[in-house]
């Protein structure tokens, strides 16, 4: 019997095989959203916990990776909704450890703060689309919404950011 079929029936060994195969992929997706390694690891476990509980709802002919990514996105969104105002974005994960000299430190902090004030839904869409440059199709699949809805969220995020930055005296 295929591993996906056995997983759908609640087989723990099949679940372990899928966990080992997909944990890196799920973690990589989550860390892009929450931008903290420790939290991303916890949320990866939380995602697979949700996956394990929902095994009976999984169709073995379906795409496990896409299903896992959607559950991971929801777990990350739930985390951001509760913790986004408390946790600062860590810099150690960022590409290039040195801050960009072209943008003044204070301006960077203002942009970062304004970005973190966006709702979790807008923040996730904007992070994945603008910062991580994931495809709109992939983001739409992970969020369970249409490509148009993703574009709309990104558009609203940019508009709100621009408004916030203008209010702070930063002209984007």
């Amino acid at each position: 019997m295929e591993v996906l079929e056995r997983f759908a029936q609640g087989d723990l060994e099949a679940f372990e095989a899928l966990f080992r195969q997909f944990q890196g992929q799920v973690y990589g997706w989550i860390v892009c959203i929450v931008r903290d390694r420790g939290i991303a690891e916890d949320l990866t476990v939380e995602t697979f916990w949700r996956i394990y509980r929902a095994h009976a709802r999984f169709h073995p002919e379906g795409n496990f990776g896409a299903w896992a990514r959607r559950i991971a996105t929801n777990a990350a969104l739930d985390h951001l909704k509760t913790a986004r105002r408390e946790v600062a974005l860590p810099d150690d994960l960022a590409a290039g450890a040195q801050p960009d000299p072209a943008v003044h430190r204070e301006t960077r902090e203002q942009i970062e703060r304004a970005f973190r004030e966006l709702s979790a839904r807008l923040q996730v869409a904007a992070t994945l689309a603008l910062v991580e440059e994931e495809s709109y199709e992939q983001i739409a699949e992970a969020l369970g919404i249409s490509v148009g809805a993703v574009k709309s969220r990104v558009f609203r995020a940019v508009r709100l950011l621009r408004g916030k930055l203008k209010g702070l005296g930063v002209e984007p």
Partner: protein
Amino acid sequence: MSEANNEKMRELLRRAVPPVADRELKRDLWPQMLRRLAERPARVPWFDWALLAVPAIWFFFSPEAIPILLYHL
């Protein structure tokens, strides 16, 4: 909102919130997962049961209160 403005906003955002450079998982999370699986399901606190018991006892001794409550719901 022009495309050029959007591009400028994207650039500013990427400088303030740079992309994640290292997405690789550094360790196996299966032991953590096993611990999570071994955890007992969440238990209902005793005071929740007590809160449930109060109306149950009330309805048991005063069944005439049930339609009154239903009317107000």
